[in-house]
């Protein structure tokens, strides 16, 4: 009987003030990845709420080889958090996900399965297909999301249905290659990553994910956000 190659997965979770959520995420990852070789790399940007203390307790519980705390002094941005986490990743694959539980670890097995089936370089989660979905968005939010998506599809031909999503699995070498050529910030950074990956010809697959927005009521989309988005689109149109 042929030996099946066992792969290791590094899960990078950037955190800032996610004292409760990081513990929940860790519990759920261990629950859903029982037979998988993985490590969780927590990149905390000096959270004042005690996130790092909780992580240390989790390390006692689960093992320091399973949970790595690679903190930074202060908030230094998402892109550099991934780069920082990557330096310490020892897996064959790297998963990036948000710490606020909008990304549910129960989808991790489907990411892994999709990659193994298709040998894709990147598997990205999409909220916009059947089987996926969003909860907690009002009509306005859905409208802007849909409008932004149609605009981005028309201008950029990105090859994925969900451009701003940040729940993704990368082959480690692919992430290193793509991230080195990205310079944007915030969600435009996520868009830049996937567009550059498409331009470089990497094989990208999608899996449906559900996204539960727990930040009810706070409007994360003001006029300035829309301007930033449009500037980001033009930047990507001209430079990729």
């Amino acid at each position, binding site marked *: 009987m042929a030996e099946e190659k066992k792969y290791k997965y590094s899960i990078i979770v950037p955190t800032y003030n996610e*004292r*409760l959520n990081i513990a*929940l995420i860790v519990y759920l990852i261990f629950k859903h990845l029982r037979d998988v070789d993985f490590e969780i790399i927590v990149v905390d940007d000096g959270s004042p709420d005690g996130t790092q203390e*909780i992580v240390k307790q989790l390390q006692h519980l689960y093992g320091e080889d399973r949970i790595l705390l690679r903190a930074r002094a202060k908030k230094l941005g998402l892109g550099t958090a991934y780069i920082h986490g990557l330096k310490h990743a020892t897996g064959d694959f790297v998963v990036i996900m948000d710490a606020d539980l909008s990304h*549910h670890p129960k989808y991790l097995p489907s990411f892994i399965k999709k990659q193994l089936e298709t040998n894709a370089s990147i598997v990205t989660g999409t909220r916009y297909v059947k089987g996926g*979905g969003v909860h907690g968005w009002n009509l306005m939010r859905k409208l802007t999301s849909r409008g932004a998506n*149609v605009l981005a599809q028309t201008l950029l031909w990105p090859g994925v249905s969900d451009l701003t999503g940040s729940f993704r699995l990368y082959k480690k070498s692919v992430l290193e290659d793509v991230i080195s050529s990205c310079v944007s910030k915030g969600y435009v950074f996520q868009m830049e990553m996937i567009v550059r990956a498409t331009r470089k010809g990497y094989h990208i697959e999608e899996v449906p994910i559900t996204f539960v927005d727990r930040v009810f009521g706070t409007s994360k989309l003001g006029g300035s956000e829309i301007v930033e988005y449009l500037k980001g689109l033009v930047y990507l149109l001209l430079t990729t």
Partner: protein
Amino acid sequence: MKHIVKILSLLVAISAFWIGLLQAAIVPRSHTWLLPIYFVVSLGCYGLLMVGIGLMQFPTCPQEAVLLQQDIAEAKDFFKHKGVDVGSD
């Protein structure tokens, strides 16, 4: 090649076709002059249609919020028994 070059080439090709139509006068020139406007308007309508359809078909998952609350309760319970103080939301 860069994406913008692809798009510009496409626009140049379409413009060349349009100018060709103008010169050949197969279609009456008065119509041909208006073609770019028709093109832009149709593109706009197509975009609006896509937004509308997408909005109507926007997948939602209210049951996921419930499942998430269950997961949170399960996790909190686990940590309570292990003596990890996760505090409150």
